[in-house]
């Protein structure tokens, strides 16, 4: 292609490129809002545990060891009673209760409140708490690996 033709091509393509750039429609990005009771409990528990376990490796290991047995429980009371029985996890049990009841008192969760003691609430609640525990430990590990 001659230099003249290349120049013409360039001047034809440049405005089209600029127009395309201007019309660019960025894709949907970023976090989606949490809607349900259980995923909100997970978010609160994650933050609670991460902040209290940061820098405390022995507590992190202890919690990690206990998660499989916690996952088998069927009621929040069982979980918190078990945690309160372990001296170094006692405080965390009270904080987890606060997270759960903070979320539960909100008007949008009246369904969960009305049937709070039923298995269809309690089982997923236990799993949402234990996923918060796992997520907190993962986040602390990620940070340590990054360092």
């Amino acid at each position, binding site marked *: 292609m001659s230099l003249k033709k290349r120049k013409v091509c360039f001047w034809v393509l440049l405005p089209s490129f600029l127009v395309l750039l201007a019309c660019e429609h960025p894709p949907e*990005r970023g*976090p*989606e*809002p949490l809607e349900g009771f259980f995923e*909100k409990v997970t*978010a*609160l528990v994650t*933050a609670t545990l991460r902040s209290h376990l940061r820098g405390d490796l022995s507590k992190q290991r202890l919690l990690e060891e206990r998660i499989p047995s916690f996952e088998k429980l069927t009621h929040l009371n069982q979980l918190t009673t078990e945690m309160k029985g372990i001296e170094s996890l006692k405080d965390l049990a009270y904080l987890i209760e606060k997270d759960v009841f*903070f979320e539960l008192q909100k008007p949008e969760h009246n369904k969960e409140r009305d049937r709070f003691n039923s298995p269809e609430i309690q089982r997923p609640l236990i799993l949402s708490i234990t996923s918060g525990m796992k997520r907190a430990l993962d*986040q602390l590990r990620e940070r340590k690996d990054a360092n």
Partner: protein
Amino acid sequence: MRIKRALVLSGGGAKGAFTVGALKYLMVELGMRFDLVVGTSTGSLIAPLVAIQDIANLIHFYENVEQQDILIDRPDLFAFLFSDALNDSTPLERLIQRFFGEDERYRRLLQSKTEVFITVVNMQTGEVEYGNPHQDPKPVFLKKILASASVPVMMPPVKIGGSQYIDGGVKEIAPLSKAIDEGATHIVSIVLSPEVNHRPPVQKEFKSSMEILKRTLELLTDEIVDNDLKVAALYTEAIRYINGIKKRGKERLGLNSSQIKTLFQGDQNPFRGKRTVHLTTIRPEEPLIASSLEFRPDQMREMVDKGYFRAKEVLREKEPYGLF
């Protein structure tokens, strides 16, 4: 006298994660509720979710959002020559729509007992204006949230009606005066920079114009927030002083209430009808991050944790009287 509890949330971009941690402590752990929330910039993104007590979504948002979820870089030269900002804020606009625009969540905001105000600056008049979900139609309020977070030059101004609006932090980073004007008696203010004597010098030379611009914005921000806090403290001291004079007038000069009222009446008294305010400020003890526009999830999570523990410390110092 009825107690009116206000929460004042300052600007600071990514540092808003510190605010979220502090709120987790105040609202979830201590069960505090507020009658009024006033937010600027990143504080205006937080305020509506505080009103509906959605701390879980605040944590989720601030711990997972990344730089490109908020802004799209425009090529510097292209931006300088042809556009109104160095970045495109379309992603942030969509996030705002997603987090606040959804009908059910917005209905909850309108029904909330907590009144929300967010600050913006009108570029044409140069005045601070406020966004409020009860006073503004929904699309306007959402635009004001975006405007309140739009750091000038970095992000484009937002057009509402015939005016362009930008970050309220340009004039008021910790909008305490609005809380006082709305009748707050007790204010908890969360500020995202440490006190002056806790700000170490930056050990580097600023070489590019962008670095200089960012550093200048940080310095201006610190200056504005210091002044906001000073004005609020001075205001309370002045009212206490006037009340002291009134008391001494009664006790030592034997003046009665109506004589004292006559002395202080008239339009010249700028404190007429005002009350003292109990102000508690929660702020980090050291600078959080170098740039407010750096959104990195690992850093944000660390700031959430710092905010939580700092709030706990400040409140412990307040015992046994508490905040309210």
